[in-house]
């Protein structure tokens, strides 16, 4: 049992000896590709917006996607969830298209830990910002210290505050590691299966592509869903208490 050094292990797996992804410039090229595809699709969808009903298929698809994200936001965050739709939809589109790139190209931005950590930092920073905007600066940070227990038990409040801070930091780690592990794990599994059958010239890894497509959708969904849940945890409002409370309690239990 050597020393359990998580940080070194993470850095080693992200950049060290076993590194197989693109370098910084290569990652930028892939991100450019993703952004280009995203803006191209959306510009193409925007062309069909002027008619009374949408005749262009791509506009209809984007409408379906919008309705899906709207359901997600309203269902999880509650009645005030509509204003978070642009952010959640951006996360979904960026992650989904990045994941899709991995099916056609050797690697993808989301198969790189640094890109995922950047996404997770943006997500959690946005959650903190929204929490501070909803409850006020002091109210948001006091929320971490737990319930009021009186002056005799203030040590428990201090400990709770520390634990909650660590938990907030760990949200970054869990969001980025989940995405990275799933996408990069899919690549490695496909590579291993292709190598297994390389003597017979059968690309067995190609049979994993449908499962990888499923992973692409689910991981994009889970990232947006967890961002929604985190937002709903910090933006408690008193209006709509009756029907909102049940859903967020259930999600908090799962969290």
């Amino acid at each position, binding site marked *: 049992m050597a020393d359990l050094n998580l940080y070194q292990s993470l850095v080693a797996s992200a950049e060290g000896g076993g590194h197989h992804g693109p370098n910084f410039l290569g990652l930028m090229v892939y991100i450019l590709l993703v952004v280009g595809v995203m803006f191209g699709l959306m510009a193409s969808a925007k062309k069909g917006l002027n008619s009374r009903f949408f005749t262009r298929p791509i506009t209809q698809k984007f409408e379906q996607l919008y309705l899906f994200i709207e359901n997600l936001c309203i269902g999880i965050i509650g009645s005030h969830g509509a204003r978070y739709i642009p952010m959640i939809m951006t996360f979904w589109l960026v992650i989904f298209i990045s994941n899709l790139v991995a099916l056609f190209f050797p690697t993808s931005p989301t198969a790189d830990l640094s890109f995922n950590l950047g996404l997770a930092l943006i997500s959690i920073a946005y959650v903190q910002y929204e929490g501070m905007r909803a409850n006020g600066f002091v109210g948001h940070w006091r929320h971490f210290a737990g319930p009021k227990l009186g002056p005799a038990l203030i040590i428990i409040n201090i400990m709770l505050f520390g634990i909650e801070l660590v938990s907030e930091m760990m949200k970054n780690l869990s969001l980025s590691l989940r995405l990275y592990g799933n996408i990069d794990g899919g690549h490695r599994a496909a590579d291993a299966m292709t190598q297994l059958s390389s003597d017979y010239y059968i690309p067995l890894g190609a049979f994993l592509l449908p499962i990888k497509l499923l992973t692409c959708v689910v991981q994009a969904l889970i990232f947006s869903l967890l961002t929604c849940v985190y937002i709903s945890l910090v933006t408690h409002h008193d209006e709509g208490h009756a029907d909102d409370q049940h859903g967020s309690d259930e*999600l908090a239990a799962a*969290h």
Partner: protein
Amino acid sequence: MLSLALGIAAAGVAIGLGLIGYSGLQGMSRQPEAIGKLQTAMLIALAFVELVFLLTVFIAPASFGGK
């Protein structure tokens, strides 16, 4: 040793995922009108179970020294 550790972790996570799918499907078939809510909660639980295995993948090499 490392592969054994990863295998044990994978087995546990597979049991957990199976339980989530089992109970999710059961709940959905008993109450089809709650499918949307059930799916959301199921996906969240799935994500948290999966994270356990990913953490194992990252931490196990460090604690076993890569052997």
